[in-house]
Protein backbone atom coordinates (compact mmCIF):
# COMPACT_ATOMS: atom_id res chain seq x y z
CA UNK A 1 0.00 0.00 0.00
CA UNK A 2 2.81 2.41 0.95
CA UNK A 3 4.82 1.42 -2.13
CA UNK A 4 1.77 1.81 -4.36
CA UNK A 5 1.07 5.26 -2.91
CA UNK A 6 4.65 6.32 -3.55
CA UNK A 7 4.60 4.91 -7.07
CA UNK A 8 1.47 6.93 -7.93
CA UNK A 9 2.97 10.10 -6.44
CA UNK A 10 6.32 9.63 -8.20
CA UNK A 11 4.80 8.94 -11.57
CA UNK A 12 2.37 11.86 -11.33
CA UNK A 13 5.24 14.17 -10.41
CA UNK A 14 7.50 12.77 -13.15
CA UNK A 15 4.84 13.13 -15.83
CA UNK A 16 6.10 10.04 -17.65
CA UNK A 17 6.88 6.42 -16.87
CA UNK A 18 5.22 3.06 -16.44
CA UNK A 19 2.25 2.54 -14.13
CA UNK A 20 0.88 -0.96 -14.50
CA UNK A 21 4.03 -3.04 -13.96
CA UNK A 22 5.32 -1.33 -10.81
CA UNK A 23 1.86 -1.43 -9.17
CA UNK A 24 1.54 -5.11 -10.02
CA UNK A 25 4.96 -5.88 -8.58
CA UNK A 26 4.48 -3.95 -5.34
CA UNK A 27 3.60 -6.97 -3.20
CA UNK A 28 6.48 -9.06 -4.55
CA UNK A 29 9.11 -6.34 -4.24
CA UNK A 30 7.88 -5.37 -0.76
CA UNK A 31 8.08 -9.00 0.33
CA UNK A 32 11.61 -9.35 -1.03
CA UNK A 33 12.90 -6.14 0.53
CA UNK A 34 11.13 -6.52 3.87
CA UNK A 35 10.83 -10.25 4.33
CA UNK A 36 13.41 -12.10 2.29
CA UNK A 37 16.66 -10.38 1.35
CA UNK A 38 19.69 -9.67 3.51
CA UNK A 39 21.17 -6.22 2.95
CA UNK A 40 22.30 -3.10 4.79
CA UNK A 41 20.78 0.11 3.39
CA UNK A 42 23.58 2.22 4.83
CA UNK A 43 26.23 -0.16 3.50
CA UNK A 44 24.94 -1.02 0.03
CA UNK A 45 28.19 -2.79 -0.92
CA UNK A 46 28.09 -4.96 2.22
CA UNK A 47 30.02 -8.07 1.24
CA UNK A 48 27.51 -10.55 2.62
CA UNK A 49 24.37 -9.17 1.02
CA UNK A 50 21.89 -10.89 -1.26
CA UNK A 51 21.59 -9.44 -4.74
CA UNK A 52 18.51 -8.01 -6.41
CA UNK A 53 18.51 -7.64 -10.18
CA UNK A 54 15.61 -5.89 -11.87
CA UNK A 55 15.75 -7.14 -15.43
CA UNK A 56 12.68 -5.21 -16.60
CA UNK A 57 14.18 -1.83 -15.72
CA UNK A 58 11.06 0.13 -16.64
CA UNK A 59 9.45 -1.14 -13.43
CA UNK A 60 12.10 0.58 -11.32
CA UNK A 61 9.67 2.99 -9.56
CA UNK A 62 8.61 0.08 -7.36
CA UNK A 63 12.25 -0.64 -6.52
CA UNK A 64 12.97 3.01 -5.75
CA UNK A 65 9.90 3.11 -3.50
CA UNK A 66 11.08 -0.02 -1.67
CA UNK A 67 14.65 1.25 -1.35
CA UNK A 68 13.46 4.56 0.09
CA UNK A 69 11.19 2.74 2.54
CA UNK A 70 14.12 0.50 3.51
CA UNK A 71 16.34 3.52 4.15
CA UNK A 72 18.75 3.54 1.22
CA UNK A 73 17.85 7.20 0.70
CA UNK A 74 15.39 9.82 1.89
CA UNK A 75 11.84 9.38 0.67
CA UNK A 76 11.76 13.00 -0.49
CA UNK A 77 14.15 12.03 -3.25
CA UNK A 78 11.42 9.86 -4.80
CA UNK A 79 9.86 13.02 -6.19
CA UNK A 80 12.96 13.62 -8.32
CA UNK A 81 12.23 10.55 -10.48
CA UNK A 82 13.10 11.15 -14.14
CA UNK A 83 14.16 14.75 -13.50
CA UNK A 84 17.43 16.30 -14.62
CA UNK A 85 20.24 15.60 -12.18
CA UNK A 86 18.31 12.94 -10.28
CA UNK A 87 19.92 9.72 -9.07
CA UNK A 88 16.55 8.14 -9.84
CA UNK A 89 16.88 7.80 -13.59
CA UNK A 90 13.90 6.76 -15.71
CA UNK A 91 15.59 3.39 -16.05
CA UNK A 92 17.96 2.29 -13.28
CA UNK A 93 21.66 3.17 -13.47
CA UNK A 94 23.92 1.40 -11.01
CA UNK A 95 26.63 4.02 -11.09
CA UNK A 96 24.24 6.77 -10.01
CA UNK A 97 22.45 5.19 -7.07
CA UNK A 98 24.15 3.00 -4.46
CA UNK A 99 22.04 -0.08 -3.81
CA UNK A 100 21.30 -0.79 -7.45
CA UNK A 101 23.16 -3.86 -8.66
CA UNK A 102 22.79 -3.26 -12.38
CA UNK A 103 21.89 -0.87 -15.14
CA UNK A 104 18.85 -2.03 -17.06
CA UNK A 105 16.07 -0.96 -19.34
CA UNK A 106 16.77 -2.62 -22.67
CA UNK A 107 15.06 -5.93 -21.97
CA UNK A 108 16.52 -9.38 -21.63
CA UNK A 109 19.91 -8.74 -20.02
CA UNK A 110 19.23 -8.59 -16.29
CA UNK A 111 18.76 -12.34 -16.01
CA UNK A 112 22.23 -12.95 -17.49
CA UNK A 113 23.78 -10.50 -15.07
CA UNK A 114 22.06 -12.22 -12.17
CA UNK A 115 23.31 -15.54 -13.54
CA UNK A 116 26.85 -14.14 -13.68
CA UNK A 117 26.73 -13.24 -9.99
CA UNK A 118 25.13 -16.60 -9.12
CA UNK A 119 27.90 -18.39 -11.03
CA UNK A 120 30.51 -16.47 -9.11
CA UNK A 121 28.95 -17.23 -5.72
CA UNK A 122 28.56 -20.93 -6.50
CA UNK A 123 31.76 -21.75 -8.38
CA UNK A 124 34.33 -19.05 -7.66
CA UNK A 125 33.59 -17.64 -4.22
CA UNK A 126 32.22 -20.68 -2.38
CA UNK A 127 29.48 -18.58 -0.78
CA UNK A 128 26.50 -20.87 -0.71
CA UNK A 129 24.48 -18.87 1.84
CA UNK A 130 23.84 -15.88 -0.42
CA UNK A 131 21.10 -15.68 -3.02
CA UNK A 132 20.54 -13.76 -6.21
CA UNK A 133 16.97 -12.59 -6.84
CA UNK A 134 15.95 -11.44 -10.27
CA UNK A 135 12.65 -10.05 -11.53
CA UNK A 136 11.83 -10.20 -15.22
CA UNK A 137 8.74 -9.12 -17.09
CA UNK A 138 6.71 -11.60 -19.10
CA UNK A 139 6.78 -9.56 -22.31
CA UNK A 140 10.53 -9.44 -21.74
CA UNK A 141 10.65 -13.18 -22.34
CA UNK A 142 10.29 -12.44 -26.06
CA UNK A 143 13.99 -11.55 -25.97
CA UNK A 144 16.47 -14.20 -27.11
CA UNK A 145 18.98 -13.10 -24.47
CA UNK A 146 16.60 -14.44 -21.79
CA UNK A 147 16.71 -17.95 -23.18
CA UNK A 148 20.48 -17.81 -23.62
CA UNK A 149 20.63 -17.03 -19.90
CA UNK A 150 18.07 -19.73 -19.11
CA UNK A 151 20.22 -22.32 -20.89
CA UNK A 152 23.34 -21.05 -19.14
CA UNK A 153 21.80 -21.19 -15.65
CA UNK A 154 20.37 -24.61 -16.40
CA UNK A 155 23.70 -25.96 -17.61
CA UNK A 156 25.55 -24.76 -14.54
CA UNK A 157 22.69 -25.62 -12.13
CA UNK A 158 22.83 -22.17 -10.54
CA UNK A 159 20.83 -23.07 -7.45
CA UNK A 160 21.34 -19.72 -5.75
CA UNK A 161 19.53 -17.97 -8.58
CA UNK A 162 15.84 -17.32 -7.91
CA UNK A 163 13.92 -15.67 -10.69
CA UNK A 164 10.44 -14.18 -10.61
CA UNK A 165 8.62 -13.81 -13.90
CA UNK A 166 6.06 -11.05 -13.50
CA UNK A 167 3.23 -12.83 -15.28
CA UNK A 168 0.80 -9.95 -15.77
CA UNK A 169 -0.09 -10.92 -19.33
CA UNK A 170 0.41 -7.45 -20.80
CA UNK A 171 3.05 -5.72 -22.86
CA UNK A 172 3.06 -2.46 -24.80
CA UNK A 173 1.27 -3.68 -27.91
CA UNK A 174 -1.36 -5.71 -26.09
CA UNK A 175 -1.79 -8.99 -24.30
CA UNK A 176 1.24 -11.26 -24.29
CA UNK A 177 -0.61 -14.16 -25.87
CA UNK A 178 -1.62 -11.93 -28.80
CA UNK A 179 1.75 -10.20 -29.26
CA UNK A 180 3.87 -13.34 -28.96
CA UNK A 181 2.46 -16.31 -27.05
CA UNK A 182 4.52 -17.52 -24.10
CA UNK A 183 2.58 -20.59 -23.07
CA UNK A 184 3.37 -23.27 -22.12
CA UNK A 185 5.54 -20.99 -20.00
CA UNK A 186 6.14 -23.38 -17.09
CA UNK A 187 6.96 -26.14 -19.54
CA UNK A 188 9.48 -23.94 -21.33
CA UNK A 189 11.42 -23.22 -18.15
CA UNK A 190 11.21 -26.82 -17.02
CA UNK A 191 12.69 -27.97 -20.32
CA UNK A 192 15.61 -25.60 -19.77
CA UNK A 193 16.42 -27.38 -16.51
CA UNK A 194 14.72 -25.09 -14.01
CA UNK A 195 12.61 -25.77 -10.95
CA UNK A 196 9.27 -24.09 -11.63
CA UNK A 197 6.60 -22.77 -9.26
CA UNK A 198 3.50 -20.72 -9.97
CA UNK A 199 2.03 -18.40 -7.36
CA UNK A 200 -0.38 -15.56 -6.73
CA UNK A 201 1.92 -12.55 -6.76
CA UNK A 202 -0.30 -10.57 -4.42
CA UNK A 203 -0.27 -13.12 -1.63
CA UNK A 204 2.66 -12.50 0.69
CA UNK A 205 2.42 -15.94 2.26
CA UNK A 206 2.60 -17.56 -1.18
CA UNK A 207 5.65 -15.51 -2.08
CA UNK A 208 7.43 -16.43 1.15
CA UNK A 209 6.56 -20.11 0.75
CA UNK A 210 7.82 -20.14 -2.83
CA UNK A 211 11.10 -18.48 -1.87
CA UNK A 212 11.53 -21.06 0.90
CA UNK A 213 10.97 -23.85 -1.58
CA UNK A 214 13.34 -22.28 -4.14
CA UNK A 215 16.07 -22.02 -1.51
CA UNK A 216 15.58 -25.69 -0.66
CA UNK A 217 16.15 -26.75 -4.27
CA UNK A 218 19.90 -27.14 -4.45
CA UNK A 219 20.46 -28.74 -7.84
CA UNK A 220 18.71 -26.33 -10.21
CA UNK A 221 17.95 -22.68 -10.68
CA UNK A 222 14.44 -21.67 -9.64
CA UNK A 223 11.83 -19.69 -11.47
CA UNK A 224 8.68 -18.54 -9.75
CA UNK A 225 5.99 -17.56 -12.23
CA UNK A 226 4.36 -14.81 -10.29
CA UNK A 227 0.83 -14.10 -11.45
CA UNK A 228 0.06 -10.46 -10.92
CA UNK A 229 -2.64 -8.01 -11.88
CA UNK A 230 -1.20 -5.12 -13.84
CA UNK A 231 -2.14 -1.83 -12.17
CA UNK A 232 -3.10 -3.77 -9.01
CA UNK A 233 -4.90 -1.68 -6.43
CA UNK A 234 -6.27 0.96 -8.80
CA UNK A 235 -9.61 -0.03 -10.34
CA UNK A 236 -9.28 1.93 -13.55
CA UNK A 237 -5.78 0.61 -14.25
CA UNK A 238 -6.16 -3.08 -13.43
CA UNK A 239 -5.84 -5.51 -16.32
CA UNK A 240 -5.58 -2.70 -18.90
CA UNK A 241 -2.47 -2.85 -21.09
CA UNK A 242 -2.95 0.81 -22.02
CA UNK A 243 -1.50 1.62 -18.59
CA UNK A 244 1.77 -0.19 -19.34
CA UNK A 245 3.77 2.84 -20.38
CA UNK A 246 1.92 5.92 -19.13
CA UNK A 247 1.72 7.77 -15.80
CA UNK A 248 -1.47 9.04 -14.17
CA UNK A 249 -2.32 12.73 -14.64
CA UNK A 250 -3.24 14.85 -11.62
CA UNK A 251 -6.93 13.88 -11.53
CA UNK A 252 -6.18 10.21 -12.10
CA UNK A 253 -3.49 10.26 -9.41
CA UNK A 254 -5.93 11.87 -6.97
CA UNK A 255 -8.51 9.22 -7.72
CA UNK A 256 -5.89 6.45 -7.44
CA UNK A 257 -4.61 7.69 -4.11
CA UNK A 258 -8.18 7.97 -2.83
CA UNK A 259 -8.80 4.37 -3.83
CA UNK A 260 -5.65 3.26 -2.03
CA UNK A 261 -6.40 5.35 1.06
CA UNK A 262 -9.94 4.06 1.39
CA UNK A 263 -9.26 0.50 0.30
CA UNK A 264 -11.65 1.14 -2.56
CA UNK A 265 -14.28 2.88 -0.48
CA UNK A 266 -14.28 0.42 2.41
CA UNK A 267 -12.82 3.08 4.68
CA UNK A 268 -14.83 6.27 4.79
CA UNK A 269 -12.41 8.39 6.80
CA UNK A 270 -8.92 8.17 8.31
CA UNK A 271 -8.89 6.20 11.52
CA UNK A 272 -11.86 4.03 10.65
CA UNK A 273 -10.89 0.47 9.95
CA UNK A 274 -12.52 -1.97 7.59
CA UNK A 275 -14.62 -4.43 9.50
Amino acid at each position, binding site marked *: MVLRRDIIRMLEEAGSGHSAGPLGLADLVATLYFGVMNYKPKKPEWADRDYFFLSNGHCVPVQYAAMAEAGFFDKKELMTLRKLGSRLQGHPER*TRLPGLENTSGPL*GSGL*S*QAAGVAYSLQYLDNQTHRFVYCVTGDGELDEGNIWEAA*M*FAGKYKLSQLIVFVDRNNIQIDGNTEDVMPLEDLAGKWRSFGWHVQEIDGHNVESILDAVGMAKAITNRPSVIITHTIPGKGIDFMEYDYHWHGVPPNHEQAKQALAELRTLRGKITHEGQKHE
Partner: protein
Amino acid sequence: MSNFHLAKTILTDDVAHEPTRAGFGRGLKRAGESDKNVVALCADLTESVQMHLFREAFPKRFIEVGVAEQNLVTVASGLARAGKIPFTASYAAFSPGRNWEQIKTTVALNDQPVKIIGGHAGLYTGPDGATHQMLEDIALMRTMPNMIVIVPGDSIEAEKATLAIAKNGRPSYLRLARDKTAVFSTEKSPFEIGKAYVLKSGKDITLFGTGTMTYELLVAAELLLSDGIDAEVVHVPTIKPLDNATVLKSVEKTGRAVTCEEAQINGGLGSAITECVSEFLPIPVKRLGVEDRYGESGDPRAVVEHFGLDGKNLAKKIKAFVRTVPQYKKGY
Protein backbone atom coordinates in the same frame (compact mmCIF):
# COMPACT_ATOMS: atom_id res chain seq x y z
CA MET B 1 65.09 8.70 -34.42
CA SER B 2 62.81 6.59 -32.32
CA ASN B 3 63.12 4.90 -28.97
CA PHE B 4 60.46 2.34 -29.80
CA HIS B 5 62.95 -0.55 -30.09
CA LEU B 6 61.80 -1.76 -33.49
CA ALA B 7 62.70 -5.35 -34.36
CA LYS B 8 66.00 -5.51 -36.23
CA THR B 9 64.47 -7.83 -38.82
CA ILE B 10 61.83 -5.43 -40.06
CA LEU B 11 61.98 -4.68 -43.77
CA THR B 12 63.91 -7.91 -44.33
CA ASP B 13 62.74 -11.33 -45.37
CA ASP B 14 63.56 -12.55 -41.91
CA VAL B 15 60.84 -10.56 -40.18
CA ALA B 16 58.89 -12.84 -37.86
CA HIS B 17 55.20 -13.44 -38.44
CA GLU B 18 52.64 -14.38 -35.80
CA PRO B 19 48.92 -13.67 -35.34
CA THR B 20 48.04 -11.01 -32.76
CA ARG B 21 45.62 -13.51 -31.21
CA ALA B 22 48.58 -15.65 -30.18
CA GLY B 23 49.92 -12.76 -28.12
CA PHE B 24 46.51 -12.37 -26.52
CA GLY B 25 46.45 -16.05 -25.56
CA ARG B 26 49.81 -15.76 -23.81
CA GLY B 27 48.86 -12.47 -22.18
CA LEU B 28 45.60 -13.82 -20.80
CA LYS B 29 47.36 -16.76 -19.18
CA ARG B 30 49.89 -14.41 -17.61
CA ALA B 31 47.11 -12.08 -16.42
CA GLY B 32 45.45 -15.12 -14.85
CA GLU B 33 48.67 -16.02 -13.06
CA SER B 34 49.05 -12.60 -11.50
CA ASP B 35 45.40 -12.00 -10.54
CA LYS B 36 43.03 -14.73 -9.41
CA ASN B 37 40.04 -12.51 -10.19
CA VAL B 38 40.71 -12.79 -13.91
CA VAL B 39 38.12 -15.10 -15.48
CA ALA B 40 37.58 -15.99 -19.12
CA LEU B 41 34.35 -16.58 -21.02
CA CYS B 42 34.12 -17.89 -24.52
CA ALA B 43 31.35 -18.42 -27.07
CA ASP B 44 32.34 -21.73 -28.63
CA LEU B 45 35.57 -20.46 -30.22
CA THR B 46 38.06 -21.19 -27.48
CA GLU B 47 41.02 -22.28 -29.58
CA SER B 48 40.25 -19.86 -32.39
CA VAL B 49 40.64 -16.95 -30.01
CA GLN B 50 43.48 -18.67 -28.16
CA MET B 51 41.73 -18.94 -24.81
CA HIS B 52 42.69 -22.60 -24.50
CA LEU B 53 45.95 -21.66 -22.77
CA PHE B 54 43.97 -20.00 -20.00
CA ARG B 55 41.43 -22.83 -19.91
CA GLU B 56 44.16 -25.42 -19.45
CA ALA B 57 45.88 -23.41 -16.71
CA PHE B 58 42.73 -22.33 -14.87
CA PRO B 59 39.87 -24.68 -15.76
CA LYS B 60 37.70 -23.45 -12.88
CA ARG B 61 37.96 -19.85 -14.04
CA PHE B 62 37.04 -20.63 -17.62
CA ILE B 63 33.34 -20.44 -18.53
CA GLU B 64 31.92 -21.79 -21.77
CA VAL B 65 28.69 -19.99 -22.70
CA GLY B 66 28.02 -21.57 -26.08
CA VAL B 67 27.18 -19.69 -29.26
CA ALA B 68 25.43 -16.89 -27.40
CA GLU B 69 27.22 -13.57 -27.65
CA GLN B 70 24.52 -11.54 -25.92
CA ASN B 71 24.75 -13.84 -22.94
CA LEU B 72 28.56 -13.82 -23.17
CA VAL B 73 28.89 -10.16 -22.24
CA THR B 74 25.91 -9.88 -19.92
CA VAL B 75 27.00 -12.85 -17.79
CA ALA B 76 30.42 -11.19 -17.74
CA SER B 77 28.80 -8.00 -16.49
CA GLY B 78 27.35 -10.00 -13.59
CA LEU B 79 30.72 -11.60 -12.86
CA ALA B 80 32.25 -8.14 -12.75
CA ARG B 81 29.56 -7.10 -10.24
CA ALA B 82 30.79 -10.00 -8.12
CA GLY B 83 34.33 -8.59 -8.23
CA LYS B 84 35.80 -10.51 -11.14
CA ILE B 85 37.75 -9.25 -14.16
CA PRO B 86 36.03 -11.03 -17.03
CA PHE B 87 37.62 -11.44 -20.46
CA THR B 88 35.03 -12.32 -23.10
CA ALA B 89 36.06 -13.54 -26.50
CA SER B 90 34.45 -14.33 -29.80
CA TYR B 91 34.88 -13.16 -33.37
CA ALA B 92 34.50 -9.40 -33.66
CA ALA B 93 31.72 -9.93 -36.21
CA PHE B 94 29.64 -11.39 -33.37
CA SER B 95 31.05 -9.57 -30.35
CA PRO B 96 30.73 -6.56 -30.56
CA GLY B 97 28.96 -7.06 -33.90
CA ARG B 98 25.87 -8.77 -32.55
CA ASN B 99 25.76 -7.67 -28.92
CA TRP B 100 26.56 -3.97 -29.12
CA GLU B 101 23.55 -2.89 -27.08
CA GLN B 102 24.29 -5.35 -24.31
CA ILE B 103 27.85 -4.05 -24.18
CA LYS B 104 26.65 -0.47 -24.07
CA THR B 105 24.05 -0.98 -21.33
CA THR B 106 25.51 -3.64 -19.08
CA VAL B 107 29.23 -2.98 -19.51
CA ALA B 108 29.93 0.60 -20.63
CA LEU B 109 27.05 2.59 -19.12
CA ASN B 110 27.16 0.21 -16.16
CA ASP B 111 30.92 0.91 -16.01
CA GLN B 112 32.06 -2.66 -15.33
CA PRO B 113 35.62 -3.80 -16.13
CA VAL B 114 34.55 -6.36 -18.73
CA LYS B 115 37.04 -6.98 -21.54
CA ILE B 116 35.61 -7.47 -25.00
CA ILE B 117 38.04 -9.40 -27.18
CA GLY B 118 37.11 -9.20 -30.85
CA GLY B 119 38.99 -11.93 -32.68
CA HIS B 120 39.28 -12.47 -36.42
CA ALA B 121 38.70 -8.79 -37.12
CA GLY B 122 39.60 -7.13 -40.40
CA LEU B 123 40.48 -8.40 -43.86
CA TYR B 124 43.08 -10.91 -42.65
CA THR B 125 40.14 -13.20 -41.82
CA GLY B 126 40.47 -14.00 -45.51
CA PRO B 127 38.62 -17.05 -46.87
CA ASP B 128 35.64 -16.70 -44.49
CA GLY B 129 34.48 -13.68 -46.50
CA ALA B 130 32.53 -10.53 -45.78
CA THR B 131 30.24 -11.88 -43.05
CA HIS B 132 33.26 -12.69 -40.89
CA GLN B 133 35.60 -9.85 -41.86
CA MET B 134 34.54 -7.36 -39.19
CA LEU B 135 35.35 -3.87 -40.42
CA GLU B 136 32.95 -1.72 -38.39
CA ASP B 137 34.01 -2.63 -34.87
CA ILE B 138 36.40 0.26 -34.31
CA ALA B 139 33.66 2.73 -35.22
CA LEU B 140 31.09 0.91 -33.09
CA MET B 141 33.26 0.80 -30.01
CA ARG B 142 34.82 4.21 -30.13
CA THR B 143 31.44 5.95 -30.02
CA MET B 144 30.70 4.31 -26.69
CA PRO B 145 31.41 6.46 -23.61
CA ASN B 146 33.60 4.74 -20.96
CA MET B 147 35.03 2.28 -23.51
CA ILE B 148 38.77 1.92 -24.15
CA VAL B 149 39.62 0.82 -27.72
CA ILE B 150 42.93 -0.89 -28.50
CA VAL B 151 44.17 -2.37 -31.78
CA PRO B 152 47.59 -3.92 -31.20
CA GLY B 153 50.10 -3.80 -34.03
CA ASP B 154 51.56 -7.26 -33.55
CA SER B 155 51.53 -10.28 -31.27
CA ILE B 156 54.08 -8.91 -28.81
CA GLU B 157 52.08 -5.75 -28.37
CA ALA B 158 48.85 -7.76 -28.11
CA GLU B 159 50.32 -9.60 -25.13
CA LYS B 160 51.26 -6.33 -23.43
CA ALA B 161 47.86 -4.82 -24.18
CA THR B 162 46.13 -7.85 -22.66
CA LEU B 163 48.10 -7.46 -19.44
CA ALA B 164 47.38 -3.73 -19.43
CA ILE B 165 43.61 -4.05 -19.78
CA ALA B 166 43.56 -6.72 -17.08
CA LYS B 167 44.74 -4.01 -14.72
CA ASN B 168 42.99 -0.87 -15.98
CA GLY B 169 39.66 -1.40 -14.20
CA ARG B 170 37.74 -0.17 -17.24
CA PRO B 171 35.47 -1.52 -19.95
CA SER B 172 37.90 -2.28 -22.76
CA TYR B 173 37.84 -3.50 -26.34
CA LEU B 174 40.79 -5.37 -27.84
CA ARG B 175 40.80 -6.01 -31.58
CA LEU B 176 42.69 -9.05 -32.87
CA ALA B 177 43.56 -10.51 -36.25
CA ARG B 178 43.39 -14.16 -37.26
CA ASP B 179 46.27 -14.51 -39.69
CA LYS B 180 50.00 -14.26 -39.17
CA THR B 181 51.25 -10.71 -39.54
CA ALA B 182 54.68 -9.12 -39.20
CA VAL B 183 56.15 -8.64 -35.74
CA PHE B 184 57.78 -5.21 -35.71
CA SER B 185 58.00 -4.52 -31.98
CA THR B 186 60.16 -6.21 -29.36
CA GLU B 187 59.85 -7.07 -25.71
CA LYS B 188 61.61 -3.78 -24.97
CA SER B 189 59.13 -1.66 -26.95
CA PRO B 190 56.92 0.51 -24.75
CA PHE B 191 53.18 0.01 -24.50
CA GLU B 192 50.90 2.18 -22.47
CA ILE B 193 47.13 2.57 -22.95
CA GLY B 194 46.46 5.96 -24.53
CA LYS B 195 49.91 6.42 -26.07
CA ALA B 196 50.87 6.68 -29.72
CA TYR B 197 54.47 6.02 -30.77
CA VAL B 198 56.70 7.55 -33.43
CA LEU B 199 58.37 4.56 -35.12
CA LYS B 200 60.24 6.55 -37.77
CA SER B 201 60.63 10.30 -37.83
CA GLY B 202 60.24 12.22 -41.06
CA LYS B 203 59.43 15.69 -42.34
CA ASP B 204 57.19 15.43 -45.43
CA ILE B 205 54.08 13.65 -44.18
CA THR B 206 52.84 11.69 -41.16
CA LEU B 207 51.57 8.16 -41.69
CA PHE B 208 49.26 7.07 -38.86
CA GLY B 209 48.69 3.34 -38.62
CA THR B 210 46.85 1.04 -36.27
CA GLY B 211 46.88 -2.74 -35.91
CA THR B 212 48.41 -4.70 -38.74
CA MET B 213 48.56 -1.64 -40.99
CA THR B 214 51.36 -0.02 -39.04
CA TYR B 215 53.87 -2.50 -40.44
CA GLU B 216 52.60 -1.90 -43.98
CA LEU B 217 53.21 1.81 -43.44
CA LEU B 218 56.79 1.09 -42.34
CA VAL B 219 57.25 -0.77 -45.63
CA ALA B 220 55.61 2.07 -47.55
CA ALA B 221 57.80 4.66 -45.83
CA GLU B 222 60.91 2.78 -46.90
CA LEU B 223 59.69 2.69 -50.52
CA LEU B 224 58.79 6.38 -50.40
CA LEU B 225 62.36 7.29 -49.46
CA SER B 226 63.47 6.30 -52.97
CA ASP B 227 60.94 8.82 -54.29
CA GLY B 228 62.49 11.48 -52.10
CA ILE B 229 59.59 11.46 -49.62
CA ASP B 230 60.62 11.38 -45.97
CA ALA B 231 57.58 10.10 -44.11
CA GLU B 232 57.07 9.96 -40.36
CA VAL B 233 55.38 6.77 -39.16
CA VAL B 234 53.24 6.94 -36.03
CA HIS B 235 51.76 3.80 -34.51
CA VAL B 236 48.39 4.33 -32.81
CA PRO B 237 47.51 1.17 -30.87
CA THR B 238 45.04 3.00 -28.63
CA ILE B 239 42.29 4.58 -30.68
CA LYS B 240 40.39 5.68 -27.62
CA PRO B 241 41.52 7.65 -25.73
CA LEU B 242 43.52 9.06 -28.63
CA ASP B 243 46.99 10.44 -27.90
CA ASN B 244 46.10 13.93 -29.15
CA ALA B 245 49.44 15.46 -28.13
CA THR B 246 51.53 13.02 -30.15
CA VAL B 247 49.18 13.27 -33.14
CA LEU B 248 49.17 17.06 -33.20
CA LYS B 249 52.89 17.38 -32.58
CA SER B 250 53.64 15.17 -35.55
CA VAL B 251 51.25 16.77 -38.05
CA GLU B 252 52.28 20.27 -37.03
CA LYS B 253 55.80 19.30 -38.07
CA THR B 254 54.98 17.43 -41.29
CA GLY B 255 51.93 19.44 -42.39
CA ARG B 256 50.18 16.49 -44.06
CA ALA B 257 48.89 13.13 -42.96
CA VAL B 258 47.58 9.77 -44.07
CA THR B 259 45.77 7.29 -41.85
CA CYS B 260 45.60 3.59 -42.53
CA GLU B 261 43.52 0.84 -40.97
CA GLU B 262 42.23 -2.60 -41.81
CA ALA B 263 38.69 -1.37 -41.22
CA GLN B 264 36.06 1.02 -42.53
CA ILE B 265 37.57 4.48 -42.88
CA ASN B 266 34.22 5.87 -41.74
CA GLY B 267 34.27 6.06 -37.98
CA GLY B 268 37.58 4.31 -37.42
CA LEU B 269 41.15 5.50 -36.91
CA GLY B 270 40.86 7.87 -39.87
CA SER B 271 37.87 9.54 -38.30
CA ALA B 272 39.54 9.73 -34.90
CA ILE B 273 42.65 11.40 -36.34
CA THR B 274 40.76 13.84 -38.57
CA GLU B 275 38.45 14.80 -35.71
CA CYS B 276 41.48 15.55 -33.56
CA VAL B 277 43.49 17.39 -36.21
CA SER B 278 40.65 19.48 -37.65
CA GLU B 279 39.80 20.95 -34.27
CA PHE B 280 43.24 22.51 -34.01
CA LEU B 281 45.01 22.74 -37.37
CA PRO B 282 44.06 23.27 -41.04
CA ILE B 283 46.00 20.19 -42.13
CA PRO B 284 44.86 17.82 -44.90
CA VAL B 285 44.40 14.19 -43.83
CA LYS B 286 43.86 11.35 -46.29
CA ARG B 287 42.11 8.28 -44.89
CA LEU B 288 43.08 4.87 -46.25
CA GLY B 289 41.42 1.58 -45.35
CA VAL B 290 38.23 -0.06 -46.50
CA GLU B 291 36.20 2.58 -48.24
CA ASP B 292 32.50 2.06 -47.52
CA ARG B 293 32.24 -1.46 -48.88
CA TYR B 294 32.37 -5.04 -47.59
CA GLY B 295 35.23 -7.48 -47.82
CA GLU B 296 35.28 -10.76 -49.73
CA SER B 297 36.75 -14.25 -49.65
CA GLY B 298 40.32 -14.97 -50.62
CA ASP B 299 43.75 -15.81 -49.32
CA PRO B 300 44.26 -13.30 -46.47
CA ARG B 301 47.26 -11.58 -48.00
CA ALA B 302 45.59 -11.53 -51.42
CA VAL B 303 42.53 -9.83 -49.92
CA VAL B 304 44.68 -7.20 -48.23
CA GLU B 305 46.50 -6.53 -51.52
CA HIS B 306 43.18 -6.48 -53.42
CA PHE B 307 42.07 -3.66 -51.15
CA GLY B 308 45.37 -1.86 -51.74
CA LEU B 309 46.47 -2.06 -48.14
CA ASP B 310 49.90 -3.68 -48.58
CA GLY B 311 53.07 -1.59 -48.35
CA LYS B 312 53.59 -1.29 -52.10
CA ASN B 313 50.05 -0.17 -52.89
CA LEU B 314 50.03 2.16 -49.92
CA ALA B 315 53.26 3.78 -51.11
CA LYS B 316 51.63 4.54 -54.46
CA LYS B 317 48.57 6.10 -52.86
CA ILE B 318 50.65 8.12 -50.41
CA LYS B 319 52.94 9.35 -53.19
CA ALA B 320 49.94 10.53 -55.22
CA PHE B 321 48.62 12.38 -52.17
CA VAL B 322 51.97 14.04 -51.48
CA ARG B 323 52.29 15.10 -55.13
CA THR B 324 48.86 16.78 -55.19
CA VAL B 325 48.27 18.15 -51.70
CA PRO B 326 50.58 20.89 -50.36
CA GLN B 327 52.05 20.82 -46.89
CA TYR B 328 50.56 23.06 -44.25
CA LYS B 329 53.12 25.61 -43.04
CA LYS B 330 52.94 27.42 -39.73
CA GLY B 331 51.14 30.74 -40.06
CA TYR B 332 49.24 29.44 -43.10
